[in-house]
């Protein structure tokens, strides 16, 4: 499992580097003279970061070999290597992203219609109204995928880093603000908060647990993938130590079952051995008890009924989309063709002596009956995003290996290949979300 954790951490870093690189390369074509020098400097710094990562390439590639990972020297050098190959470059990248607002070619704020499609699906109209006017905007600022909110009581802007603008898998934090609001307004949570004992009595643990559990109920396992990946890279001690085990319990509670979830949970458990948790401000032996988590999850179920939740049924649909994502096919809709039924009906129709009148008289299915059967139903943005996360987890070890396997004469070619892959994958998910929206409109009965 240590292997999984290492691969995941390294991949998350390399993905961010590749995205950053892609963003800067795109700006080169549109940059005015005032930004050229700054952009050149940023590209140079980014190349230094890539160089630092690739300096540990030999060690990093050992992650792909079971024996190497178990070797004593690997284990001994691991903490230092993680610092050099992952966390130091990540900090440098975060620092570099602080320069993005100075690039004039980058809009100070931009919006993506697909975010609204996701928000509209998840947020009930009543609560949306209660929360006033809300917008999700992308700004060239912080590196963390966690959004921050600013604005007034009635107008809220949720800011997501510009780097995640075209990556729907990096948007999921926007829903946390909504979940946080529910912890303050919904009676089920208010009562838990006043009556809670143990860790539930401490806001510093209670609030993140409720917020994460509500978001899990709304977004499904995609939120778990997102939150764990982000916490590992941010070394979020509270989340990894207290919230992650409770969320994993929540996955089982809501019947989300897949091996990717177990693997990720075990990787998060391993992180507790690697990271120095004693340094955390809220460290402590005690974890949430099963009964405490269950009481929170019950309150979550009460607040978010099944009709609004992301359920096991949705997750199964998302899992079924993997094959199509692997082939690069649009996943905006799914069909459940009762093939045998159609083929049998078709055989009758294709018989030359069976005219339409004869078929109709015999009470068999007409062509129109069968056409209705092959109509597809739109997948929801949540199903599409969940499918995207499962696909990412499945593919990222291969992509990571390829990114690290650069040629001598083109040392950074692996980063370019990853950027191309990410761009294609982002586009496919966004296109699927957008197409599913049109699909829903065209299914409306008039």
């Amino acid at each position: 499992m240590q292997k999984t954790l290492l691969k995941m951490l390294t991949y998350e870093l390399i993905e961010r580097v590749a995205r950053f690189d892609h963003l800067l390369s795109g700006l080169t074509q549109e940059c005015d003279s005032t930004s050229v020098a700054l952009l050149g400097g940023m590209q140079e710094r980014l190349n230094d970061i890539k160089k630092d990562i690739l300096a540990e390439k030999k060690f990093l590639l050992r992650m792909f070999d079971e024996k190497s990972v178990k070797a004593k020297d690997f284990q001994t050098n691991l903490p230092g290597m993680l610092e050099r190959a992952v966390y130091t470059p990540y900090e440098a990248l975060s620092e570099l992203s602080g320069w993005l607002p100075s690039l004039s070619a980058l809009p100070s704020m931009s919006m993506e219609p697909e975010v609204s499609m996701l928000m509209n699906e998840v947020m009930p109209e009543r609560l949306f109204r209660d929360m006033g006017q809300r917008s999700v905007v992308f700004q060239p600022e912080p590196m963390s995928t966690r959004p921050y909110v600013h604005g007034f009581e009635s107008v809220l802007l949720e800011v997501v880093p510009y780097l995640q603008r075209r990556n729907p898998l990096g948007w999921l934090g926007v829903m946390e603000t909504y979940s946080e609001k529910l912890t303050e307004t919904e009676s089920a949570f208010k009562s838990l908060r006043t009556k809670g004992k143990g860790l539930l009595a401490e806001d510093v643990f209670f609030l993140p647990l409720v917020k994460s559990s509500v978001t899990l109920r709304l977004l499904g396992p995609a939120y778990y993938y997102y939150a764990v990946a982000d916490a590992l890279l941010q070394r979020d001690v509270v989340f990894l130590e207290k919230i992650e085990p409770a969320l994993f319990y929540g996955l089982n509670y809501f019947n989300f079952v897949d091996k990717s979830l177990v693997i990720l949970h075990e990787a998060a458990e391993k992180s507790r051995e690697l990271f120095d948790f004693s340094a955390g401000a809220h460290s402590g032996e005690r974890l949430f008890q099963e009964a405490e988590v269950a009481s929170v999850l019950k309150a979550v179920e009460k607040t978010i009924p099944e009709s609004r939740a992301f359920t096991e049924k949705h997750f199964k649909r998302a899992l079924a989309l993997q094959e199509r994502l692997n082939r690069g096919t649009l996943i905006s809709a799914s069909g459940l063709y009762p093939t045998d039924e159609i083929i049998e009906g078709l055989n009758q129709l294709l018989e030359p002596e069976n005219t339409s009148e004869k078929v109709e008289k015999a009470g068999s299915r007409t062509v129109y009956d069968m056409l209705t059967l092959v109509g597809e139903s739109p997948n929801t943005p949540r199903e599409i995003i969940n499918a995207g996360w499962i696909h990412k987890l499945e593919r990222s070890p291969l992509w990571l290996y390829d990114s690290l396997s650069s040629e001598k004469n083109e040392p950074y070619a692996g980063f370019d290949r990853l950027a191309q892959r990410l761009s294609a994958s982002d586009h496919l998910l966004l296109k699927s979300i957008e197409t599913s929206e049109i699909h829903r409109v065209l299914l409306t009965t008039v």
Partner: protein
Amino acid sequence: MILNESQILERLVDPDPERRIVITPLIRPEEQFGPSSVDLRLGTDFQVMRRSNLTHMDVVKTPVELEKDVRRSMHYVKVPPMEPFVLHPGEFALASTLEFVKIPLDLAARLEGRSTWGRLGLQIHATAGFVDPGFVGALTFELSNVSTVPLQLYPGVRISQICFFDAERTRLPYAEKRFSKYSGKTSTASSEFFRDPEYARIRKAREQSAFV
């Protein structure tokens, strides 16, 4: 032989993925199917030629420079799902189908306009209506408005139809063709003429014939 509605339907549900026609999303098949065709819908992204100071596409330039020129000369328009794209009289725009299409290796296809829109002056392709066996992706529209009034085009509207022809199974599927440029795209793709190998040959010949 052109496939009729039942034969298209049979191919849509064929258990063998090699023989299956893929058209997704298939939103309202009962409205989209005709006797020998399936209506396809308009997507959301458009490309319009921009008036610029670029006098021509200079093929002597490198493909990278030419790609930049093509980008500079195209205006990219993304239309939100419920908003129209307006195609003015005499205007030309590139667009693509909402649907993702996959043609099996033993079928070829033709993309045609619908008479409903033809009567209003909309042409959906200038010359390239043929779809190769093995094509995968969104199909490109070369839209022209030859009437005298602007046309409002909403994403999701059926502006075209595709029909299928039996063909001998190819050993050169479009997606695997050595110089195929538009395979697997899920949105509107502009011309990549500069990737045609002829231009590399012309450039080389011009460099070598310095004395004329």
